[in-house]
Each structure stands twice: as structure tokens, then as C-alpha cells.
């Protein structure tokens, strides 16, 4: 348990994000919740690849040949860019909704209630 504290921390971040998604009604807060979940998942991926006493997997002027796993770093890079793209799109929708209804409160907008 105590050795897995980094994983638990990532999961706590995800749970906080889910809580925000479910119980907050402000559009921007919903986007923030989604971002928290994204950050949690990205951190989870990157912590999976850590190996004790190792350096980054780059041979240029490396300290030693013990290296952490490189695949999670590549995956996380991809998923960060994907998260950024989705966030940009969702925020654009939020801007449009705000322009149309003059409010960012989801409970005042018909379809987003419930």
C-alpha cells in the first residue's frame, strides 16, 4: 500500500475529477473536472514506467545505461496532445453556449439538466 502511494495519488486525482463532473453544474467546472481526470490518467500512465535508480531513456550524455521504460512516456505524450485537443473543443462549445443563453449554469439550460 505505502509503496504504491504514487498510483493512489493519481487515482485520487481521477476521483476528484469524477466528483467535479457529477456534482458541479457550472460548464467551466465540468471542463475542469474532465481535465482532472485526464491529468490523473496521464500521471498514472507515466508512473507505470518508473524504475528505481534509472535515468531518462536518452543516450546523449547519459549517466548510465539503466533506463526507465520509454513506452509510457511516448503514450503519455500522445494522450496529452489528445487531451489538449478535446479541451479546446469542449471550451469552444462552452463559449457558444454562453453566447447563446448568457449563462454558464448547466441547470438553467434545458438539455444539460440532469
Amino acid at each position, binding site marked *: *500500500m505505502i*509503496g*504504491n*502511494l*504514487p*498510483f*493512489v495519488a*493519481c*487515482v485520487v486525482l*481521477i*476521483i476528484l475529477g*469524477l*466528483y467535479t463532473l*457529477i*456534482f458541479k453544474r457550472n460548464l467551466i467546472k465540468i471542463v475542469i473536472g474532465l481535465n482532472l481526470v485526464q491529468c490523473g490518467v496521464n500521471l*498514472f500512465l507515466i*508512473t*507505470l*514506467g*518508473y*524504475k*528505481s535508480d534509472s535515468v*531518462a*531513456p*536518452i*543516450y*546523449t550524455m547519459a549517466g548510465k545505461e539503466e*533506463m526507465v*521504460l*520509454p*513506452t509510457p*512516456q*511516448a*503514450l503519455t*505524450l*500522445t494522450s496529452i*496532445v*489528445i487531451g*489538449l*485537443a*478535446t479541451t*479546446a*473543443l469542449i471550451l*469552444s*462549445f462552452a463559449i*457558444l453556449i454562453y453566447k447563446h443563453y448568457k449563462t454558464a449554469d448547466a441547470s438553467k439550460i434545458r438539455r444539460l439538466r*440532469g
Partner: protein
Amino acid sequence: MKKYVALAALLVVSGFFLLSAIEMHSFGSPAEEDMDRYFIENAQEETSTNNVVTSIVFDYRGFDTLGEATVLFTAVVGVSLLFRRLRK
């Protein structure tokens, strides 16, 4: 009522997430690493790149990167679609 259902769902999902975090291999010592060891040992020879992560991003998993570039392109096209000028 609805709030309690949502809370219960959240608690169940959190339990699953926490379970997977606690059961995961202990931090700092991956359970298996044969694929990654291949990358570390052979990336320099096969792609003549010092940076193993770049060799994965652009060579071994280049198709993912194509998808990722497409995602970004899609988002830009989507955002410009949403903020386009409408005909009067």
C-alpha cells in the same frame, strides 16, 4: 434521491480505481519489461536515434503519432467550424 444514486455510483467506481492502484505492481519495479527492454537495446541501431522516446514516438509507434496529429488537426478544423462566419 438522484444525488444519492450518483454518489453511490461514484463510490463504486472509486473503489474499482483504488483497487487497481493498490493491486498494481509496486512502484519503481515493473512486473514485466520485455518490450521496453527491446526498445532500449535496439533503438539506437535500428533507427540511429539517441533519444529512445523519440524513436518510439516517430518510428515504432509512428502510426499513433499520425493519429495524434490528426486529432489536433481535427480539433483545429472543429473549432474553426464553430467560429465560422455565417452568411447573412
